[in-house]
């Protein structure tokens, strides 16, 4: 899922300076799963913003709404009846949702309430770790189902580097597993260590962000 986390409160409060009526919008999909932008988080942040405004001697009216998805126009349209009452929008969705609102309601300033961080899996409650970099040229079939693009700090296709710690952790972060150690262990479990002797060729990075904004055009889906 796409994961995100709240922006620091001082940054949010600075954005809200001068705003009198705020439309705070959550998204009930990915950011709800990672406890950053679902209904619970919307209903937590709204009173906090109101209290912060009162603390600064002002008053902030907060209208709350959580959409099923902020990245689908059909759901975004539900906000049309609420936006006339607001002078700014704060979105707790990922960057896609924020841009969707800004595109649909160009007359209003739309601010992000979260920092979108990665495509991650929930390892355990409260811990999400990156699993996919949306690179557009998946190599998981060659790496025993473990992604070196997202999970290696250097995105090495022929790892490991020389920096793996003795306990199998990454030299960049002691809490992060060296994915190439994990790949090696899985290859050994399957009795296929020889597969790792093969040199993987340079990857086609033009299909990732390096090749410009991504685009999938499926004409067959349009009528």
């Amino acid at each position, binding site marked *: 899922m796409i994961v995100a986390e709240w922006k620091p409160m001082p940054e949010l409060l600075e954005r809200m300076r001068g705003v009198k009526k705020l439309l705070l919008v959550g998204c009930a999909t990915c950011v709800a799963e990672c406890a950053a932008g679902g209904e619970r988080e919307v209903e*937590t942040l709204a009173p*906090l913003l109101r209290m912060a405004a*009162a603390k600064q001697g002002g008053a902030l009216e907060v209208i709350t709404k959580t959409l099923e998805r902020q990245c689908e126009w059909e759901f975004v349209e539900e906000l049309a009846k609420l936006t006339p009452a607001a002078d700014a929008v704060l979105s707790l969705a990922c960057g896609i949702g924020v841009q969707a609102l800004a595109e649909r309601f160009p007359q209003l300033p739309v601010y992000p309430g979260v920092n979108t961080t990665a495509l991650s899996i929930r390892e355990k409650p409260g811990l999400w770790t990156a699993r996919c970099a949306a690179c557009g040229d998946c190599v998981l079939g060659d790496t025993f189902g473990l992604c070196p693009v997202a999970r290696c700090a250097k995105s090495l296709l022929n790892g490991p580097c020389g920096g793996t710690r003795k306990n199998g952790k990454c030299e960049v972060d002691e809490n992060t597993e060296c994915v190439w150690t994990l790949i090696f262990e899985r290859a050994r479990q399957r009795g296929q260590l020889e597969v790792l002797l093969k040199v993987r060729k340079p990857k086609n990075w033009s299909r990732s962000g390096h090749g410009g904004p991504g685009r999938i055009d499926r004409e067959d889906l349009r009528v």
Partner: protein
Amino acid sequence: MSGRSKKFEPRIVALYCANALDPEADLAAAVKAAEGFAVRPVALPCSSKAELSHLMKLLAEGADAVQVIACPEGSCQFLVGSARAEKRVQRGRALLMQIGMGEERLGLARGRGLKVEELMALLERRAGLVRGLGKNPISGEEEK
């Protein structure tokens, strides 16, 4: 300034696990007799029923403080309910600190089968901590 006047009597919402309080306790009488602060007691089947959004909303609706009373570690009938409540309170306190409201407006205490005097003593302590912070700024308008 009025928030720190001698007349300031903090309004405290007490969210307590039903198991944390002595079932024989006459809470209504104790609440009525409280001096120097006002209490709104709310019984919960477990302290974990209080979400972070509930805690923040109570404060944003004008409570000067919210006191959660949970069962001691290891004796929660829902096993991890009181631990969840504690984590939520910790996060809530951090957020209140970040917006300058003061973390002491929210707190958690633990107890099981508490006598009503013990509960009121906990609330008295919370009231004392909040007096130093003054009245909840969001209730300023209605107090004028």
